[in-house]
């Protein structure tokens, strides 16, 4: 599965588990408006580390934190 699909699937799975109402996903959607909270993103990053094998927050040279869904996906695509 591509990184993009993996991330989108995980977002839906975590929203379901945490009983959050997930906004319709598109690349321009700000993470803040996705319906997920910090804990959800922490879970997402922890699981992606196992599935994708990287944690770009730790390894990336890029100091800018992603703030939209599209930026988040590209953040992982660049690191993989």
């Amino acid at each position, binding site marked *: 599965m591509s990184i993009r699909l993996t991330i989108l699937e995980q977002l839906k799975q975590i929203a379901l588990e945490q009983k959050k109402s997930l906004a319709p996903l598109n690349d321009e959607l700000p993470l*803040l408006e996705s319906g997920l909270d910090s804990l959800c993103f922490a879970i997402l990053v922890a699981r992606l580390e*196992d599935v994708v094998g990287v944690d770009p927050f730790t390894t990336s040279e890029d100091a800018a934190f992603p703030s939209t869904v599209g930026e988040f996906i590209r953040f992982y695509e660049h690191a993989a």
Partner: protein
Amino acid sequence: MRPEHRSLREWLAAGEAGRVIRDATRVVALDDFAARSGLKAGAAPLIAGRNVMLAIEDQLTAAAALIELDGLARRIVVCPPGLDLASRAVIATNAGVETIVIDAETAADARTALYRLPLADAAPIDAPFIATEWALLTSGTSGPPKLAAHDLSTLTGVMAKAPPPNPAPRWATYYDIRRYGGMQILLRALTGGDSLTLTHASDPIETTLSRLNDSGVTHITGTPTHWRKVLMSGAARRIDPAYVRLSGEIVDDAVLNGLKSAYPRARIVHAYASTEAGVGFEVTDGEPGFPASLLDARGDGAVEMRIVDGSLHLRSRRTALRYIGGNSAPITTDDGFIDSGDMVERRGDRYFFTGRRGGVINVGGSKVHPEEVENVINAQPGVRISLVKARKNPITGAAVVADVVIQDGCADSDALRVRILDACRAGLAAYKVPMVIRFVPSLEMTPGGKLARLG
């Protein structure tokens, strides 16, 4: 005048005029405390010289009440927001509380409220000055929370001598002022700062950032988790602070670099502090961990530090005086050091924090005891044993992860994973539920037959 001989109201009278404390909707003018009060008329005998518990849920009201109680009450026991009634009762008993100060919003019967905003005209209370003892709840220990005793001197004890900032900082804090980190900022603002802006965890980040900017805030403080939220909000540049401070959790490169990039003109400082140890030190070089040279620091305001079995020990004029309560253990070692339980390791010329002794996990500022989670997991049929531990996480600092050994004959690990997660979600707060579950063939044991844990 020594700080312990001056009440907060006297600090305010000696400070600049026109300062305020504000939250999202209200403003309290600090000048008003000279001739106005939020105390219920006739309440003075219940407060003066008494052991008082401050159990006001609203943060701004609690801040105003603290200003008025200091110098008047013998002891103020400061309840953090959301403290349950059972814990409150235990604490009140242990601390010899005589009066509980609640506000009209918290009281079942508004007539029992002893404090309210807005302030009203009031004659000054005629009572002798008392160097009030401040009792703060500690976190990070199992069982009922302990109370650490401070006074205004330990809480405001200066760091190494530095010229006072000019102009005075306009502080804002993401912490609650009833916990040590937030109280530091409240007291810095009252005793030498300009205005203070309070925030609430439930406020939307973007709105809060705009509000901080409108208030002309220059100095902002929060945990790494708070700051990561700001950086990921897409609204980080709504503020342009001169000073950014992080504490309360382990700081990593990602959040420091993110902050440097978002706020190029800001001084970015991370501080080590705890309720027991007080403010230990500040790291100003923009790197995670702290320079090993800090262990040799001496001089006025300096903290003395040593590493014992991997744990950081500290002693300074800011460390708590003692634990409150009949059978409390001494808070310090025989020679006055606090054993923080924060484990460090040296790499090159720096020390780095690796976690809590005993494996207590700090998820975005909330403490998780591994044993509590393991008990829930181990109760599931098909589980032989489990080990819950921390994994570094760029969003919440640490993530709770579980290694689980399956009983022989339990074939379906996917179904077991679902059962474990369901049980954890039903029985534990959301931040305690393992984010990742791994099935492993075995777990390492100590020679004594215990699970091998960090530290």
